[in-house]
């Protein structure tokens, strides 16, 4: 529980900081002018990294496709917008998201494939301590961890973690039964 808060607070702080700091990267500001077709000149989009005060048709549209007296008419039809983005935030977000996704995938592969294999290799087929309510349950959470752990010989911290993990697994199993098997909730 506490680690979740720490992670979340860290993430929040990084987000807010990054969004302020990295926006000033020169690649991340632009002025985009869209000029529609005029007479026989095709429509074109102009982009330049200028600041807000220079974001208008005269500064951005280069080279100007029309001559002196038509410039005003041409520029009146163009629309210039100043845009700012934060590429640092995007990069940070995608990297954080992919790393969390990767960790979850690894954990899922471990829980569904590796742990039963390890259990079978360590203890053979015969010794399965059945718990009360999942007789014949083929789910990966069923008894694997029960069998793998030898609780009384381990130090207290690890014991607590395993205990918490066991409790969490039982909860997930209950939830899975309610949602997928009995269709009682969230059908």
């Amino acid at each position, binding site marked *: 529980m506490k680690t979740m808060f720490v992670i979340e607070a860290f993430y929040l702080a990084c987000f807010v900081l990054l*969004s302020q700091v990295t926006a000033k990267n020169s690649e991340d500001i632009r002025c985009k002018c869209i000029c529609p077709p005029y007479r026989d000149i095709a429509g074109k989009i102009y982009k330049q990294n200028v600041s807000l005060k220079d974001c208008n048709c005269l500064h951005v549209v280069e080279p100007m496709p029309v001559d002196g007296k038509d410039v005003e008419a041409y520029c009146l039809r163009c629309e210039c917008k100043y845009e700012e983005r934060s590429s640092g935030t995007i990069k940070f977000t*995608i990297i954080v998201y992919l790393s969390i996704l990767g960790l979850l995938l690894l954990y*899922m592969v471990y829980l569904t494939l590796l742990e039963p294999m390890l259990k079978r290799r360590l203890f053979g087929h015969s010794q399965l301590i059945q718990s009360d309510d999942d007789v014949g349950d083929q789910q990966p959470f069923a008894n694997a961890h029960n069998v793998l752990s030898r609780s009384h010989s381990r130090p207290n911290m690890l014991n607590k973690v395993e205990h918490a993990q066991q409790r969490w697994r039982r909860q997930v199993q209950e939830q899975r039964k309610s949602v997928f098997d009995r*269709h009682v*909730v969230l059908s």
Partner: protein
Amino acid sequence: MSNGGGVASSTTHLLDFLEEPIPGVGTYDDFHTIDWVREKCKDRERHRKINSKKKESAWEFTKSLYDAWSGWLVVTLTGLASGALAGLIDIAADWMNDLKEGVCLSAMWFNHEQCCWTSNETTFAERDKCPQWKSWAELILGQAEGPGSYIMNYFMYIYWALSFAFLAVCLVKVFAPYACGSGIPEIKTILSGFIIRGYLGKWTLMIKTITLVLAVASGLSLGKEGPLVHVACCCGNIFSYLFPKYSKNEAKKREVLSAASAAGVSVAFGAPIGGVLFSLEEVSYYFPLKTLWRSFFAALVAAFVLRSINPFGNSRLVLFYVEYHTPWYLFELIPFILLGVFGGLWGAFFIRANIAWCRRRKSTRFGKYPVLEVIFVATITAVVAFPNPYTRQNTSELIKELFTDCGPLESSQLCQYRSQMNGSKAFTDNPNRPAGPGVYAAMWQLCLALIFKIIMTIFTFGLKVPSGLFIPSMAIGAIAGRIVGIAVEQLAYYHHDWFLFKEWCEVGADCITPGLYAMVGAAACLGGVTRMTVSLVVIVFELTGGLEYIVPLMAAVMTSKWVGDAFGREGIYEAHIRLNGYPFLDAKEEFTHTTLAREVMRPRRSDPPLAVLTQDDLTVEELQGVINETSYNGFPVIVSKESQRLVGFALRRDITIAIENARRKQEGIMLNSRVYFTQHAPTLPADSPRPLKLRSILDMSPFTVTDHTPMEIVVDIFRKLGLRQCLVTHNGRLLGIITKKDILRHMAQMANQDPESIMFN
């Protein structure tokens, strides 16, 4: 609860202080309803204690300040977290969506639009072509055009869509099964007083966030607004555990959850006021004024955080924010009302079809293979969606394109009107423009997209991945609206000498704006399926930034609600609540039947007699026997079997915990110890074991009605006070009990629905 005499009350007070509260009493089991009255009393008691100690020392004063301000702190933290998570979801979903088409070679973390952001190779006609963005066909085959690359792109699109959907459903199944679905029906039930343990927990939060991105990116016909409300409520629930004022009291926690759901809608639509109204109208059950202010604050904080993250690079919170300034004309109310009728009809059809499909999934063997079902639906969606450019793109982008009006700066296929301007001659005597071939082709594709989306959304909502309903319904409405808008526009062009058009349309200006029709259509469809009224209008007008279009919006939304209500009074969320059998007593329905309390109460004639406890006659063994033999949640306590006069009400969970606690802590409690609920122990022979006092768990003020009370009043009492059970007396003697489940079953029976479908109590 009245005060006794002066001295007597102080001694009882003293004695109560000497007895410690038993740990665990006052908590609730999973899938049970809370007792609102008890929770509110507990909170007032806590508040009184803190206030009375306030003047004693500076430390107590600080504690009272902290207690007063903790509400604001929770709400601020919830808003911050919701905004941050919504930013994460938006950025990641955008990126993964474009991953189906290709990659940005220079910076892998950019999506298509961001990749071409600084490039100067974009042209006016093709605004998203740049050399840094490579489609999969280009990367794998080396060529960008041609049938081979089309097939390769198609194949990669299907592959990515399938793998995202498969990952999403696997993660949901393995880590957090509660993360599937929309979440709003369950949150409505939770806010009305139901307990679902783990539904708003940290694993559910994490898995919902991660799999929401995957589900949206896989191209399935779903949105992310409903799941964002669930995510925000999870944040609210997690933060409320930091403060004992909220973690120990279920009623106060629900105030925080109301504020959190407002924050969720606010970041989904960039509409803080709409979010608060949505929380008030759709999600919350009790909404005191304090919650109104706090919800608004949470929504503002969340919107502010999302804006400072700036996910779309244009300082807008939502992709399809458009600003309109064109006027609308009075004759356009006719097509707007037609759009409202379409929205209502589609809403009624969708609710019936979706509930029928979900019921089939629930009860037959279709529901045994959730992973296969998701893969199958994702495959069909991807295979059919790719050829049509309007379904291939992100649904939010589709809505944006449909909402955007065609000006000279637009170059999409939808805006390819046949231009009548040659050189300086810009004015004609016809205010509109005829549609070019591009527009006709676009209309065909839009019609096909409409049919596709209508069919696929029925099967997608309710899959075992996080799925929302707002965006698909808005898309359907926007497509229908745009088609109607273009049709009216062409009608105005080809028949510009009709009275209607000549009277109102000015020469030289565009008369009809099809983008506005798309917006009205989107609002009508969303209103038809959710039956939202005020909140929908406010959300849409916050999206468009103008009060000018309130009248068309309201006309369409009201029409769609009336047409939808003609077919069935429930919105999609109430229908799902009824499908799941949650104990939700709807505050909007009126109870119009003339039954009396004694026709609904239990025990009925054929039932065994009411299970009661006497106040000082029982032994521990008999008490445990009563508890083990029956499955009732609570037992009335009476003076004696002869008089049947009521003393109070005791809950099963509290009794069990109290007996266990007494056996562990107090010496001499044996099976034949006497149990008494009175203040003083009954007189016992000298050699009897120590008696057990259970007065502290007894509710001394249960609500009672007489057996001739009309059920209208009983239902009203249950709704307004949030009761779970109510005792029925006759001439002062206890006769029976009415529980919330009995009321729900009775209402179902009166409405000719199956009363056995109410599952929980």
